[in-house]
Protein backbone atom coordinates (compact mmCIF):
# COMPACT_ATOMS: atom_id res chain seq x y z
CA UNK A 1 0.00 0.00 0.00
CA UNK A 2 1.13 3.51 -0.81
CA UNK A 3 -0.36 6.48 0.94
CA UNK A 4 -0.85 9.88 -0.68
CA UNK A 5 -1.87 12.92 1.28
CA UNK A 6 -3.15 16.29 0.14
CA UNK A 7 -4.08 19.23 2.34
CA UNK A 8 -5.93 22.45 1.81
CA UNK A 9 -7.49 24.92 4.23
CA UNK A 10 -8.54 22.80 7.16
CA UNK A 11 -9.15 19.71 5.04
CA UNK A 12 -6.99 16.62 4.52
CA UNK A 13 -7.45 13.89 1.95
CA UNK A 14 -5.66 10.60 2.47
CA UNK A 15 -5.44 8.26 -0.47
CA UNK A 16 -4.29 4.69 0.19
CA UNK A 17 -3.30 2.90 -3.01
CA UNK A 18 -3.21 -0.89 -3.22
CA UNK A 19 -4.20 -3.44 -0.59
CA UNK A 20 -5.33 -2.56 2.93
CA UNK A 21 -4.90 -5.64 5.10
CA UNK A 22 -3.36 -6.64 8.43
CA UNK A 23 0.11 -5.66 7.23
CA UNK A 24 -0.80 -2.22 5.87
CA UNK A 25 -3.78 -1.02 7.93
CA UNK A 26 -1.60 0.14 10.88
CA UNK A 27 0.06 2.76 8.61
CA UNK A 28 -3.35 3.93 7.40
CA UNK A 29 -4.59 4.05 10.98
CA UNK A 30 -1.64 6.22 12.09
CA UNK A 31 -2.16 8.58 9.15
CA UNK A 32 -5.92 8.89 9.77
CA UNK A 33 -5.52 9.56 13.49
CA UNK A 34 -2.75 12.12 12.86
CA UNK A 35 -4.88 13.88 10.25
CA UNK A 36 -7.89 14.00 12.59
CA UNK A 37 -5.72 15.53 15.29
CA UNK A 38 -4.44 18.21 12.92
CA UNK A 39 -7.54 19.12 10.89
CA UNK A 40 -11.30 19.49 11.21
CA UNK A 41 -12.21 17.58 8.10
CA UNK A 42 -10.65 14.32 6.93
CA UNK A 43 -11.49 12.51 3.72
CA UNK A 44 -10.23 9.04 2.87
CA UNK A 45 -10.15 8.53 -0.88
CA UNK A 46 -10.75 4.79 -1.35
CA UNK A 47 -10.92 4.77 -5.14
CA UNK A 48 -7.48 3.18 -5.54
CA UNK A 49 -7.91 0.40 -2.97
CA UNK A 50 -8.18 -2.99 -4.62
CA UNK A 51 -8.54 -5.06 -1.48
CA UNK A 52 -9.67 -4.33 2.08
CA UNK A 53 -10.07 -6.74 4.99
CA UNK A 54 -11.72 -6.29 8.39
CA UNK A 55 -8.62 -4.62 9.85
CA UNK A 56 -9.08 -1.94 7.19
CA UNK A 57 -12.78 -1.65 8.00
CA UNK A 58 -11.98 -1.39 11.71
CA UNK A 59 -9.45 1.34 10.91
CA UNK A 60 -12.16 3.38 9.18
CA UNK A 61 -14.54 2.80 12.10
CA UNK A 62 -11.82 3.98 14.46
CA UNK A 63 -11.37 7.13 12.41
CA UNK A 64 -15.09 7.79 12.55
CA UNK A 65 -15.14 7.31 16.31
CA UNK A 66 -12.09 9.58 16.78
CA UNK A 67 -13.98 12.36 14.99
CA UNK A 68 -16.94 11.95 17.33
CA UNK A 69 -19.41 14.74 16.54
CA UNK A 70 -16.75 17.40 16.41
CA UNK A 71 -15.01 16.71 13.12
CA UNK A 72 -15.99 15.60 9.66
CA UNK A 73 -14.93 12.16 8.42
CA UNK A 74 -15.82 11.21 4.87
CA UNK A 75 -15.11 8.22 2.63
CA UNK A 76 -14.57 9.34 -0.94
CA UNK A 77 -15.41 7.28 -4.03
CA UNK A 78 -14.93 3.82 -2.53
CA UNK A 79 -13.83 1.21 -5.07
CA UNK A 80 -15.96 -1.86 -5.71
CA UNK A 81 -13.95 -4.16 -3.39
CA UNK A 82 -14.21 -1.60 -0.57
CA UNK A 83 -17.97 -1.15 -1.00
CA UNK A 84 -18.32 -4.89 -1.08
CA UNK A 85 -16.61 -5.45 2.26
CA UNK A 86 -18.48 -2.53 3.86
CA UNK A 87 -21.78 -3.99 2.67
CA UNK A 88 -20.81 -7.51 3.70
CA UNK A 89 -20.05 -6.17 7.18
CA UNK A 90 -23.29 -4.13 7.01
CA UNK A 91 -21.39 -0.98 7.80
CA UNK A 92 -21.94 0.95 4.59
CA UNK A 93 -24.70 2.95 6.29
CA UNK A 94 -22.42 3.99 9.12
CA UNK A 95 -20.21 6.30 7.09
CA UNK A 96 -20.67 9.52 5.22
CA UNK A 97 -19.80 8.37 1.72
CA UNK A 98 -19.19 10.77 -1.14
CA UNK A 99 -19.40 9.03 -4.49
CA UNK A 100 -18.07 11.85 -6.67
CA UNK A 101 -15.08 14.04 -5.94
Amino acid at each position, binding site marked *: MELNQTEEAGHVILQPVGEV*DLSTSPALRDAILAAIKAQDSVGVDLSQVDYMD*SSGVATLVEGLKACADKKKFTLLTPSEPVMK*VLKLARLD*GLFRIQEQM
Partner: protein
Amino acid sequence: MNKPGIAMEVSSDPALLGVVRGAVRCFLDAYGVPNERTAEAVLAVDEACANAIRHAYGGQKDRKFRLAMRTTERWLELEVRDSGKPAPRDKIVQKGLPEISDHSEITPGGLGVQLMYKVFDNVDFCPGKTRGNCVTLRLKRPE
Protein backbone atom coordinates in the same frame (compact mmCIF):
# COMPACT_ATOMS: atom_id res chain seq x y z
CA MET B 1 -9.58 -40.67 3.36
CA ASN B 2 -7.07 -38.79 1.31
CA LYS B 3 -8.72 -35.70 -0.11
CA PRO B 4 -7.18 -34.16 -3.25
CA GLY B 5 -5.78 -30.72 -2.66
CA ILE B 6 -2.81 -28.59 -1.69
CA ALA B 7 -1.33 -27.42 1.61
CA MET B 8 1.07 -24.67 2.55
CA GLU B 9 2.96 -23.76 5.68
CA VAL B 10 3.05 -20.01 6.19
CA SER B 11 5.08 -17.84 8.59
CA SER B 12 2.85 -15.70 10.79
CA ASP B 13 3.97 -12.51 9.03
CA PRO B 14 1.13 -10.25 7.84
CA ALA B 15 3.24 -9.36 4.80
CA LEU B 16 2.56 -12.90 3.49
CA LEU B 17 -1.21 -12.57 3.57
CA GLY B 18 -1.24 -11.27 0.00
CA VAL B 19 0.50 -14.46 -1.13
CA VAL B 20 -2.06 -16.56 0.75
CA ARG B 21 -4.91 -14.66 -0.90
CA GLY B 22 -3.41 -15.27 -4.33
CA ALA B 23 -3.17 -19.02 -3.64
CA VAL B 24 -6.76 -19.21 -2.38
CA ARG B 25 -8.00 -17.27 -5.42
CA CYS B 26 -6.19 -19.67 -7.78
CA PHE B 27 -7.55 -22.73 -5.95
CA LEU B 28 -11.17 -21.52 -6.12
CA ASP B 29 -10.72 -20.48 -9.78
CA ALA B 30 -9.40 -23.96 -10.56
CA TYR B 31 -12.65 -25.47 -9.32
CA GLY B 32 -14.92 -23.07 -11.16
CA VAL B 33 -16.13 -20.89 -8.30
CA PRO B 34 -17.68 -17.70 -9.77
CA ASN B 35 -15.60 -14.53 -9.38
CA GLU B 36 -18.03 -12.79 -7.03
CA ARG B 37 -18.07 -15.76 -4.65
CA THR B 38 -14.30 -16.16 -4.91
CA ALA B 39 -13.71 -12.56 -3.81
CA GLU B 40 -15.82 -13.07 -0.67
CA ALA B 41 -14.23 -16.43 0.10
CA VAL B 42 -10.70 -15.00 -0.31
CA LEU B 43 -11.63 -12.29 2.20
CA ALA B 44 -13.00 -14.80 4.71
CA VAL B 45 -9.94 -17.09 4.49
CA ASP B 46 -7.72 -14.03 4.89
CA GLU B 47 -9.66 -13.22 8.07
CA ALA B 48 -9.00 -16.73 9.42
CA CYS B 49 -5.27 -16.39 8.73
CA ALA B 50 -5.19 -12.84 10.16
CA ASN B 51 -6.83 -14.13 13.37
CA ALA B 52 -4.15 -16.82 13.68
CA ILE B 53 -1.46 -14.15 13.40
CA ARG B 54 -3.11 -11.53 15.52
CA HIS B 55 -4.87 -13.49 18.22
CA ALA B 56 -3.38 -17.01 18.39
CA TYR B 57 0.21 -15.77 18.03
CA GLY B 58 -0.30 -12.28 19.47
CA GLY B 59 1.36 -10.69 16.45
CA GLN B 60 4.58 -12.73 16.62
CA LYS B 61 5.90 -13.05 13.06
CA ASP B 62 8.13 -16.08 13.50
CA ARG B 63 5.47 -18.71 14.13
CA LYS B 64 3.80 -20.88 11.53
CA PHE B 65 0.27 -21.66 10.47
CA ARG B 66 -0.89 -24.15 7.92
CA LEU B 67 -3.42 -23.60 5.17
CA ALA B 68 -4.84 -26.71 3.52
CA MET B 69 -7.17 -26.49 0.53
CA ARG B 70 -8.98 -29.71 -0.27
CA THR B 71 -11.82 -31.07 -2.31
CA THR B 72 -14.46 -33.62 -1.44
CA GLU B 73 -17.36 -34.75 -3.56
CA ARG B 74 -19.53 -32.07 -2.03
CA TRP B 75 -17.22 -29.34 -0.72
CA LEU B 76 -14.23 -27.16 -1.35
CA GLU B 77 -12.60 -27.10 2.08
CA LEU B 78 -10.13 -24.54 3.35
CA GLU B 79 -8.55 -25.28 6.68
CA VAL B 80 -6.39 -22.92 8.74
CA ARG B 81 -4.51 -24.52 11.60
CA ASP B 82 -2.24 -22.81 14.13
CA SER B 83 -0.50 -23.88 17.30
CA GLY B 84 -1.03 -20.68 19.25
CA LYS B 85 -3.44 -19.60 21.95
CA PRO B 86 -6.87 -21.21 21.62
CA ALA B 87 -9.67 -18.77 20.81
CA PRO B 88 -12.19 -18.23 23.63
CA ARG B 89 -15.49 -19.94 22.81
CA ASP B 90 -17.50 -16.73 22.95
CA LYS B 91 -15.34 -15.21 20.20
CA ILE B 92 -16.03 -17.92 17.64
CA VAL B 93 -19.76 -18.47 17.86
CA GLN B 94 -22.06 -17.25 15.14
CA LYS B 95 -23.64 -14.00 16.30
CA GLY B 96 -24.43 -12.33 13.02
CA LEU B 97 -23.01 -8.98 12.15
CA PRO B 98 -23.56 -6.09 14.54
CA GLU B 99 -26.31 -3.58 13.96
CA ILE B 100 -24.99 -0.25 12.83
CA SER B 101 -25.82 1.39 16.15
CA ASP B 102 -23.52 -1.11 17.88
CA HIS B 103 -20.37 -0.02 16.09
CA SER B 104 -18.63 0.62 19.38
CA GLU B 105 -18.46 -3.18 19.63
CA ILE B 106 -16.62 -3.62 16.35
CA THR B 107 -13.22 -5.24 16.54
CA PRO B 108 -11.38 -6.65 13.53
CA GLY B 109 -11.16 -10.19 14.93
CA GLY B 110 -14.82 -10.32 15.86
CA LEU B 111 -15.86 -8.90 12.51
CA GLY B 112 -13.65 -11.42 10.70
CA VAL B 113 -15.28 -14.40 12.41
CA GLN B 114 -18.77 -13.20 11.50
CA LEU B 115 -17.67 -12.62 7.90
CA MET B 116 -16.50 -16.26 7.77
CA TYR B 117 -19.96 -17.43 8.85
CA LYS B 118 -21.63 -15.12 6.39
CA VAL B 119 -19.57 -16.14 3.36
CA PHE B 120 -19.07 -19.90 3.77
CA ASP B 121 -21.74 -22.60 3.65
CA ASN B 122 -20.27 -24.42 6.61
CA VAL B 123 -17.82 -23.23 9.29
CA ASP B 124 -16.20 -25.39 11.91
CA PHE B 125 -14.05 -23.94 14.70
CA CYS B 126 -11.99 -26.35 16.80
CA PRO B 127 -9.92 -24.56 19.41
CA GLY B 128 -7.57 -26.94 21.26
CA LYS B 129 -7.98 -27.48 25.00
CA THR B 130 -4.61 -25.98 25.80
CA ARG B 131 -3.06 -25.04 22.47
CA GLY B 132 -3.87 -24.44 18.83
CA ASN B 133 -6.89 -23.69 16.68
CA CYS B 134 -8.31 -25.21 13.58
CA VAL B 135 -10.97 -23.56 11.46
CA THR B 136 -12.48 -25.35 8.48
CA LEU B 137 -14.38 -23.28 5.94
CA ARG B 138 -16.51 -25.19 3.44
CA LEU B 139 -18.00 -23.99 0.20
CA LYS B 140 -20.42 -26.11 -1.82
CA ARG B 141 -18.76 -27.18 -5.05
CA PRO B 142 -20.20 -25.46 -8.09
CA GLU B 143 -22.53 -27.77 -10.10
